[in-house]
């Protein structure tokens, strides 16, 4: 449905996007995740048609909408956009806002589509109200309904939840996901919040400094990050010093202060070793009082069902994070014996 090939975008003198490629299948919900300044907004706006490309192509449904030679105007693309602050027209009612993009259709068609969308977004009672009379969540739904009304090929959402109550975000995100899936809309949203990304998206592209670090499902990003940046950005975790030692004709292992683990390096004829940082997630630990690895609790954060501890390994002086069920309730300064149980050995 959406295909980006070797996109390069510059604004003025500055190159914002360097060689980005990704594709999104029809009906999927994609996400551009990354910190501020990584270029995700620029990319979104390029797909919408507000920004031209320096190089590369953007194809929607097989049709090239942007390339270095060609640029189809925003008004001609079938791309819907939901802005961060919704940008609902304050002088129009909810109903009028929603049908705004349907000006080419007859009144009956507009009415029919309006009813359909109002049902879908559960806003039937609010059709004649004005935006300022609605809550944030309702306004978001109106914005989405408006963008969906002309049945766009792609729906772009720019930080759709940043304007909303954080406690509602997760439930709203699920609602939106249900809505989008029901409509079968191909959507791409951008956000800097991982929780939203994880909840709503099928595939997430982690972006950093104008290029995509990794484009995969949430699970893969979390458990099999391909780059240091992704490992660091997605989920919580720490890195500990390690030494990868590869003996001839073996896959090698990594030696750390908290244990040794097998790795999957390419076998080589000669032995070699290299320095590495091993990713340790909070859920990789098991409490074992008799373990040789003793750590001290130097910090704790209560999280309801779990407590996130910060452990310090006295010998190596490294800190790690550990998520344990809260009934353990270790106080600061306590010594705990732990053992690393790594499902995925990730190091860089």
């Amino acid at each position, binding site marked *: 449905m959406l295909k980006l090939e070797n996109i390069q975008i510059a*604004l*003025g003198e500055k190159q914002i996007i360097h060689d980005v490629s990704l594709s999104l299948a029809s009906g999927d919900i994609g996400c551009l995740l990354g910190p*501020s*300044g990584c270029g995700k*907004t*620029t990319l979104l*706006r390029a797909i*919408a*048609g*507000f*920004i*031209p490309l320096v190089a590369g192509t953007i194809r929607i449904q097989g049709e090239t909408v942007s390339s270095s030679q060609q640029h189809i*105007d*925003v*008004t*001609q*693309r079938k*791309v*819907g*956009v939901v*802005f*961060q*602050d919704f*940008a609902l*027209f*304050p*002088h129009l009612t909810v109903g009028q806002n929603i049908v*705004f*993009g349907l*000006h*080419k259709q007859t009144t009956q068609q507009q009415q029919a589509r309006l009813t359909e969308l109002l049902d879908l977004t559960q806003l039937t009672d609010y059709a004649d109200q*004005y*935006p*300022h009379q609605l809550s*944030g969540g309702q*306004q978001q739904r109106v914005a989405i309904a*408006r*963008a969906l*009304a*002309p049945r*766009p090929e792609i729906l772009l959402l*720019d*930080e759709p939840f*940043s*304007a909303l109550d954080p406690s509602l975000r997760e439930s709203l995100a699920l609602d939106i996901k249900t809505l989008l899936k029901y409509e079968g809309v191909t959507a791409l949203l951008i956000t800097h919040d991982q929780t939203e990304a994880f909840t709503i998206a099928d595939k997430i592209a982690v972006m950093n400094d104008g290029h995509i670090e990794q484009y995969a499902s949430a699970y893969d990003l979390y458990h099999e990050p391909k780059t240091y940046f992704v490992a660091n950005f997605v989920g919580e975790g720490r890195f500990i010093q390690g030494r990868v030692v590869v003996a001839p004709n073996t896959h090698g292992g990594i030696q750390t202060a908290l244990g040794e683990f097998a790795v999957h390096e390419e076998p080589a004829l000669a032995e070699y070793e290299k320095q590495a940082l091993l990713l340790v997630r909070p859920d990789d630990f098991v409490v074992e009082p008799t373990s040789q690895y003793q750590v001290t609790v130097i910090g704790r954060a209560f999280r309801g069902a779990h407590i996130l501890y910060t452990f310090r390994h006295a010998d190596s002086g490294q800190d790690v994070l550990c998520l344990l069920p809260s009934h353990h309730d270790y106080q600061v300064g306590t010594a705990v014996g732990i053992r690393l149980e790594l499902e995925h050995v990730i190091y860089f």
Partner: protein
Amino acid sequence: MAITAVFTSLGHSFVTSIFAVLRDTWFVSALCLCALLGVPIIAILWSFTDISVPLWTHLIETNLSLYIGNSLLLALGVGIGSGVLGVSLAWCVTQYEFWGRSWFQWALLLPLAMPAYIMAYTYTGLFDDLGWFDSRSLIGAIAFMSLVLYPYVFMLAKTAFSGQQQQYQEVAATLGVTRSAYFLKIALPIARPAVLTGVALAMMEALADYGTVAFFGISTFTTGIFRTWFGMGEMQLASQLAGGLALFVLVVLGLEKHSRRNMRFYQTQDLPVNKDTSARARSTKSASVQSSLSRYALSAYCLSVLLLAFIIPVTQLCVWALSTLEHIDVTEYWTLLLNSFSLALFSSILIVLIALCLSYAQRFAKTKSVGYLTQFAALGYAIPGTVLAIGILQPFGWLDEQLNYLWYQWFGEYIGLVFSGTFVALFFAYCVRFLSVAVHNTQTGLERIKPHIDDAVLTLGRGRLSLIRRIHFPLLRKSLLAASILVFVDVLKELPATLILRPFNFNTLAVKAFEYAADERLIAAAMPSVTIVIIGIIPVIMLTRAMQQN
């Protein structure tokens, strides 16, 4: 025990009611202010207690239909003319990129500096010299006044358009709406309150104008008032006609207010806007491709308006003025200059302060009636300067009389005139007349600051004064500046009231220009006219600089 309890509760309720009154100080002070400013209006309403049937019959038989018809046509014509000009220019300047755009943004405000009647005199003289058509007609008056008054609409529309969310346009674009459709369906409706305010101002100016219609020989309410008063010597009838004129203005004001009422245009949410989004959005604003032909057309349009409304008349005036250069008395001219400038400066500061007080009273006092009070006080705009002056002379004369009697009783001598014939009367007249201009701007500016901000500051433990000083004032700067400049230029151009109420030996440029022009010595009138225009330009430049900096 019980007695102390009773007393404490009584005292408590006493104290709370005091606080209730204090809280209403806004309302009370607004009430006092408006009552004061409403004195001329009340004086005029009072004149309706003495209606002469034969006089009115005569009026109805002869001229009344002319007055009503011409005044209506004039107001509507100017409203449409200035509206179309102002909105189209504001749209061009905010939406498109073309040669000279940044320069036109402020240059198009320049006609503000030119009084309508001076433009009328100038063009008529010019056309006469060239032997072209005679522009002394209703159409001519409408055309000239529209050219002079469109900046009111232009300024307000420009602020409205540029303040509108960039994203509305982007949303509309993604929904397949072209720019022109966007203009009609979104931009213009949202800007409607601002546009209507500007149009209302222009219409009121047109209704109150005397110089142009008198010169062109068009019978309107204002000329009718003068004629009834001067010619027939019937002050009461003149006041009643003035009341009729005020009615027209009330209608205009009412329509404008009504349109504002239903639309609440401030944002409903304070959003943590993504800096990237807004910054990048702003930088790609004019990314739309335009043909060079349309760019030239836009530049040509702006340029031609500027030529017609400002460059040509000013050049003609300069040419005339330079031809009289040898005959100028320098000290006299310098005095005129100083007088006009200081009068205008002082008045504008005073009037904007009052307008601000009223707007604040409307914001803080929860009673809606403050709004009506303000509108009532702002009606002074509709009253022609002369009638206003007379409406002030009488009460002031009475006041002086009383003051003198009192003074005599206390001190055994007369103090003379304190109010009439001094600057007090003059300032009072300016206040009454130009308050509406200032209030419109302070009101619009204050409306743009959400009430939530007030709440936020108050809950942070800071008083109202602090709120005003540290939060509102920086946000209001643009509106305050706009208000003071509009008032400054208006006072500079003001004629009839100044003529009547000014103290001895105090002349302004407007007075001088009028005297010469009324004596049909247009060329001699050029020098003071040009000076008015040139001084009037300076605040316009200041205004635009300030707006650009923000």
